[in-house]
């Protein structure tokens, strides 16, 4: 299915939960409302015509000027061979979004990574701990305003 068809299908099904689309970008994307994410993702995965069975990547992007953090889901379908980019916009001060680990198991580590590096909290994640950084690390390095700590357990940073 083309992007336009997928968008119409989603718009027809979820209505105002689908906030925006951008098809000028090289990879066109759809922005959805964070509160319906699990519903929409489940629909995307289980609907026969869509069959997005492969969650490739979850990325977080920090936009401090607009005060938002975007969580970007790149999903693909092995059966149909099509792809889709879903975005969720969260407030920067308190980014909370529902976890999609119930939909794709591969979301487990990917969400942990986003939590670790950007501080997005995934509600309903079974094991939301830091994954790449040590447990007692402070701050989330991929935020644009992150300041490197001067030292970590007595190890100087310079």
């Amino acid at each position, binding site marked *: 299915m083309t992007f336009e068809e997928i968008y119409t299908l989603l718009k027809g099904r979820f209505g105002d939960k689908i906030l925006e689309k951008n098809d000028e970008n090289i990879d066109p994307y759809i922005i959805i409302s964070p509160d319906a994410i699990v519903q929409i993702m489940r629909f995307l995965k289980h609907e026969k015509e869509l069959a997005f069975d492969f969650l490739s*990547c979850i*990325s977080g992007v920090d936009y401090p000027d607009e005060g938002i953090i975007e969580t970007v889901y790149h999903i693909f379908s092995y059966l149909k*061979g099509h792809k889709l980019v879903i975005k969720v916009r969260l407030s920067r001060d308190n980014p909370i979004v529902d976890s999609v680990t119930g939909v794709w198991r591969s979301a*487990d580590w990917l969400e942990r990574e986003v939590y670790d590096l950007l501080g997005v909290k995934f509600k309903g994640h079974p094991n939301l701990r830091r994954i*790449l950084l040590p447990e007692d690390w402070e701050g989330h390095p*991929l935020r644009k305003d992150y300041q490197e700590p001067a030292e970590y357990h007595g190890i100087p940073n310079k």
Partner: protein
Amino acid sequence: MSVDYLHTHEILVNMGPQHPSTHGVLRLVVKTDGEWVTETQPYIGYLHRCAEKIGESVEYPQFVPYTDRLDYLGAINNNLCYCLAVERLAGIEVPERATYLRVIGAELNRIASHLISYGTFGMETGAFTPFFYGFRERETILSIFEKWFGARLTYHLCRIGGVMADITPEIAQDIRDFIKTMRAVWDDYNTLLSFNEIFVRRTADVGVIPPEMAIEYGLTGPCLRGSGVKWDLRKNDPYCFYDTFDFDIPVGEGLMGTVGDSWDRYWVRMREIIESTKIIEQALDRMPEGAIRAKVPKILKLPKGEVYVRCENPRGELGFYLVSDGGTKPYRLKIRAPSFCNLSITNAICKDCLLADVIVIVGSIDIVLGEVDR
């Protein structure tokens, strides 16, 4: 007779970060009941350098050498994927010869990477000699690389808009000779390890990943194909003229046990070596004359936008998600590392097996910690 009064304790064993067969600094906390493993929990991050943050602070061409350091065994594939992402966003047209050179480099590098995987997997099952045989052939590849563009591990072959150096007829001949020896030696490899009864017993039916589970956990590359899913980005989402080459996609068939066991994953890698040699031969034959680098401005500014490009790395699907704000540096660079996603399956399959199986399973997933931790 009841044996309720016999109490046994589960032992919690720290396998790694320093352990001979965890491929670097992976730490597995293994809960065992005697030899039986009841739970395995991987802990990663010992090699974390925050490559994504580095990506935000250097210019587009300057990040290419950093991609070498992700999956250091398949560095050209990483270069290639990043360059494709930048070129796609910038709309740069790569000369045809450069694309063929990239393919040759990437496929040679894939062979080198699979040779290491062959050697280390042999080592994990206790056979030392395959390791040296694998390195012997890899050394030839490295010599070719050294002759071609001068580096042996961190290649930095692909530049934005092309490749660093052209091959001479002499190097092309070297590559052809290597392919010939590789095919001959490949049979020896299999006699020595692949079909050895002990090796088959150690790996067949161990760490079985059914295809549904493999897809669910987002496995890619040989791990996915080992489970019998015929999916290779080189054919299914082609880049660099891969769709015009004639090669097979090996998938796990359960030749020795169940579909998706460790032996199948291993065997997919071994067969990919042969498929890669086919691609290289065709690329050498079809390569046109011409420029090897497109005209790229010295200070490269990318238009505002974002792109997600994925390539078939030796370990699976490598993805670069590039967000540009119109400047000379990436606004955000996310790396989707195949080893990272493949490793996430360990605590699902490394349980109710023997201690020795944990090592075989982790070995059959074939991770590179440089990429897992980034």
